[in-house]
């Protein structure tokens, strides 16, 4: 199993899965802090969670889930040789990423205009548990937002390679790995959303 033009698909996907483990553990640090501080300040976490808008969060959840569906279909499309359809689906995924980030911008903007952001005077007047909640909220959603942007760039790169036919119906592991990364971005949001937005329900 070697040679100059050798392509090891299993190896490539294996490496990607290992990388996804590391991403899960990266966010794991934040989830661990959430668990410890939730156990310490349960009431204050609930009262702070009421400040978050379920519609913003729920809307973004739908947007991300839809985008993951687009990516999954796009891989099948490419494997069946439907290059144009694949590119359109990937374009829709990036559009979803943009919608997500715009939505996030308005959400953060609303919070910040109410004086709720790390280090603000208003935040420092709140209960300790509420401060922790919002600081964690900004770090977690911020880091996740960064991953949405990176994921969109990775998909744009895959589109570029598909356009140049370097990724095609016979050689599609790069697209599959890009898709795996995008699903991770989606997966992490699936955990972030209930922890922060649905905590009082």
């Amino acid at each position, binding site marked *: *199993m070697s040679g100059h033009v050798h392509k*090891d698909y299993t190896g490539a996907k294996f490496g990607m899965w290992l990388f996804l483990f590391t991403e899960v553990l990266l966010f794991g640090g934040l989830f661990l802090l959430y668990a410890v501080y939730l156990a310490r300040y349960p009431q204050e976490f609930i009262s702070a969670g009421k400040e978050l808008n379920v519609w913003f969060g729920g809307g973004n959840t739908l947007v991300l889930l839809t985008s993951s569906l687009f990516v999954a279909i796009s891989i099948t499309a490419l494997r069946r040789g439907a290059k144009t359809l694949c590119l359109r689906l990937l374009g829709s995924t990036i559009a979803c990423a943009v919608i997500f980030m715009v939505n996030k911008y308005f959400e953060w903007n609303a919070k910040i205009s109410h004086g709720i952001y790390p280090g603000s005077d208003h935040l420092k007047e709140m209960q300790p548990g509420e401060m922790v909640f919002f600081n964690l909220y900004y770090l977690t959603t911020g880091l996740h937002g960064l991953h949405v942007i990176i994921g969109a760039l990775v998909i744009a790169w895959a589109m570029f390679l598909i356009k140049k036919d370097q990724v095609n119906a016979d050689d599609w592991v790069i697209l599959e790995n890009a898709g795996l990364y995008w699903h991770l971005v989606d997966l992490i949001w699936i955990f972030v959303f209930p922890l922060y937005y649905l905590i009082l329900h």
Partner: protein
Amino acid sequence: MSDVTTTATSERGFFDEGQYPGIFAWLLSTDHKRIGLLYFWCIVTFFCVGAILGLLIRLELFAPGETIMGAQTYNAVFTLHGVIMIFLFIIPGIPAAFGNLIMPIQLGARDVAFPKLNLFSWYLYITGAILAVTSLFTGGGPPDTGWTFYVPFSAQTSTNVSLAAVAVFILGFSSILTGLNFVTTIHRLRTEGMTWMRIPLFTWSLYATAWIQILATPVIGITVAMLFAERIIGTGLFDPAQGGDPIMFQHLFWIYSHPAVYIMILPGMGVVSDIVPVFSRKPCFGYKAIVVSSLAIAFAGSLVWAHHMYTSGMSDMAVLVFSFLTFIVAIPSAIKVFNWLATLYEGSILLDPPLLYALSFILLFTIGGLTGLVLGAAAADVHVHDTYFVVGHFHFVMFGGTGMAFFAAMHYWLPKIYGRMYDKTIATVAWAVMVIGFLILYISMKIVGMQGMPRRYYDYVPEFTGLNQLATVGSWILAVGLVLMFANIIRGIFKGDPVEANPWGGASLEWQIPSPPPMENFGEEDPVVTHGPYDFTKAGIL
């Protein structure tokens, strides 16, 4: 190890066939041997810088009071010594340098699974290293927190901790990518006949190490990222005034940094496991036990982090549990030591330099490991916590262990890579001088620590003067040994006698190809493995 047909290649092997002209033959190469050498020389350079800083620390402690530097400078110097030695020498040391050089050859592969990613890891390492060094000269002065970056001090100090945190994040990313590259390589690129139970123990140790790199390093990433956010935008997750808890920083830090000590030591154990059978002319005793103990260390080592925090204010129950787990993790290490000794027993021992360095590993690591148990016992730890006993302990395991293993690997594999042999007599003399200096230096530290001298101060009470001066003299002897050793190695690379393919009589695959190895390691035909890595009879050596 197998019937490899030696293909006709030039005498200079992979040194001849750069893909790009001039320096780019190295800077843009994706060949694992060239990347390994890039790592090797960077790592050796940083080791020398770290060693000079260590000598300066010892010089300052030659007499009580201010000797050559003030308190603030001293804080910066020991922080830098720690950061350079930990993040730029010990952690990448053996895996990135010798792992890259040797591991693919031991598996019978042409390269690692992701060669471009491998080169990218090196660039991340260099970027992180440059940022770490830059943090000394920019911002509010060199970081003065120690390599552990404990909050609240690290969140408040005006020195350049933010940039150092970014450097650690990038170095961690480099470590992760190397780890996932190695795991994938070992799973996917073993040649025909290279079953799991025929993998040389050095590569096995890299496999266990790579898993720790993958699973633990992201945690330090997020921890220093949170420290960075706390300093820059005031997220206050570890700030009690904002409801945070500084102890959580220590937990997150050690969730990575304790497994990280096994990232440091496991490859060293792998080097020793490869060297001891070759120089005893005997198959490795308990091959499977060593494999399993490597994996056991990787697993159990992930469960003991809080033994660094006995005095930080944990519950008694937590202290008890972590103390117990710490004792458990000593078992697989002891299994390895007994197996090495059993391999040596009744062997036809050749006292060549690689074995001497490996033997000093066994001696010094055992002393260091046993004093680790003193620290692992909660009651004793309260007495010696944050004293020079701790400093002596971790220098025994890290320098006496990993450092000696790095030097053993240097003396064992560099003749293969460069195709030239150093002077064995000088190597032996340098080894003896180093071990003597080492023992004087670090045993003095342990005793003065037992007497109560705390670490991390530039000053001490006059009662400790004698032992401190002894330690400083030991550091000079050690330095002489180091200079002699490196000079001999470098001279050997340029002017040493040419060596044949198998100067030591090893049975694993790297000894079956020419020295230096050709560009594609094995030529057109992939090797077929028919026996284990220490089967000297079947390899035709005995």
